């Protein structure tokens, strides 16, 4: 891996579960009807957007989930063709032309449904492509997933889900840059990574609250 480590921070206390990130991702990457790289899971009841518990003691939280762009990605080791690889900036990428659709990466990935299989020829509700120029076309019989909007990142922009979030719950940047917003926000906030026991060291951090400040009452 190169010198950069691109990471995404998601403040789960700010997330209101509006699914705008999921839609922006879908539009920017020109994803077929059934494919959603970015999802907002409900940490509550059994159905989406429903709380758990009995009124008035209800609990509801949202967990935006997409590829975690692990520093130690098990999908890269599982892929038999080299279609899944890690770019110099840490982004875990897919080369659809090399993918044989064996699903090994899906099996190896510990995170829920962040990779999706194009079962059929891609179909779209719109009769024209959407999104960013240079986004590779989806192919039937291959696996696809979030790329941190690598075409936007290559132009110095941020992924589509960052821009669209109405509550500014998301941050994106290079964690090795100590002047970057992500570095500072991570320093100031309590955070967690998902399924750390799997040794993947994800590049997506979930912010769970401000760190206690010295001399301040909590």
């Amino acid at each position, binding site marked *: 891996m190169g010198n950069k480590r691109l990471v995404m921070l998601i403040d789960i206390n700010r997330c209101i579960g509006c699914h705008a990130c999921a839609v922006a991702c879908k539009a920017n990457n020109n994803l077929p009807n059934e494919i959603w790289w970015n999802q907002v899971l409900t940490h509550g009841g059994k159905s989406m957007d429903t709380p758990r518990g009995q009124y008035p003691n209800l609990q509801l939280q949202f967990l935006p989930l997409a590829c975690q762009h692990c520093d130690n990605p098990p999908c890269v080791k599982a892929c038999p063709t080299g279609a899944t690889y890690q770019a110099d900036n840490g982004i875990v990428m897919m080369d659809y032309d090399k993918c044989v659709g064996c699903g090994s990466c899906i099996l190896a990935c510990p995170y829920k449904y962040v990779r999706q299989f194009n079962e059929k020829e891609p179909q779209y509700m719109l009769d024209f492509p959407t999104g960013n120029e240079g986004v590779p076309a989806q192919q039937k019989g291959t696996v696809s997933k979030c790329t941190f909007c690598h075409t936007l990142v290559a132009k110095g922009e941020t992924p589509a889900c960052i821009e669209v979030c109405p509550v500014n719950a998301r941050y994106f940047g290079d964690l090795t840059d100590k002047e970057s917003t992500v570095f500072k926000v991570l320093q100031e906030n309590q955070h967690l990574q998902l*399924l750390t026991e799997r040794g993947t060291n994800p590049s997506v951090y979930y912010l769970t609250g401000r760190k206690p400040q010295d001399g301040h009452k909590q």
Partner: protein
Amino acid sequence: MLRKEWPLITNTILAQLAAGLFIFLAWDRIVLSRESLQLALTSTAQGLAWTGPVIVLAMLLSLFHLGKPFRAYRAMANLPVSWLSWEIFFSGAFLLLWIIFMVFESSDSIALPLMVAAGLVGLLNVISMSNIYSSTGRPGWKGTGTYLDFLGSTLVFGSVGAAFFLSAAGLDAAMVKVLTYFPLLASVLILVIELIVILHFVSTQMALTDDFSLDQLASSSDLNEALLKKYQNIAVAGWLLSVLGVLMVMLYLSGLLQFSLLLSFLLVLIGELLGRYGFFMLVGESEEASQYITAVSHARHGN
């Protein structure tokens, strides 16, 4: 299940059948050749000849699992790190060694090292495919469970298959018993251990299903209670058929039962297929993501 997994179920079962059958019949040929080279050849030739078509069928069926089967030639491109690449390599190598072995079968000096090499490669193939699933870290597959399942199937197929083919070739029942009785006993032992592991795994996972954490929500392995119960029923049903098949062979060889050993072999085959179906259920795909996709798609379609 994740997607239609029947190609993987049949591929893994047939590859283990081919490896087990070849290893045990090769061993039997070596042992019998001390008595008579001709007897060794005639008793094992038919069974060893079957292993090639079985591995070919296994490889062909695996193509149905691929989204892009015509790109299958790329699948050994990541040999340094991918266990799937290694599995495909060993499957091909086993087939190649089998072909060469069949050509030089009657030449003992060439056939013996080829048999040893093919048996070893067949075993490495089974270990590689075990590593594919074991390394995913999924609760149902990690640790020794996958090795026990896959190597256990290889042992069961090898012992029952060898008894069937040796008998079918007309080898004296007493001689078949000498050659296969200990492998059959070992098969029963492995099957008993497998049952203990299955029941222990289900009870342990049942106790965990009430966990309510972000990690569990994000985990691709969602083994809920209903899935675990269904898995247990299928795995135990498969186990019963396999055990029954092995015990029937043992009773036959002891002269206590008279029937066609093909029946035992088929019972074991169906039992192992059922067990493997249960194994692939443990991928534990959550329905929640699918619900998400369905719900959002419906919203977008306005219905």
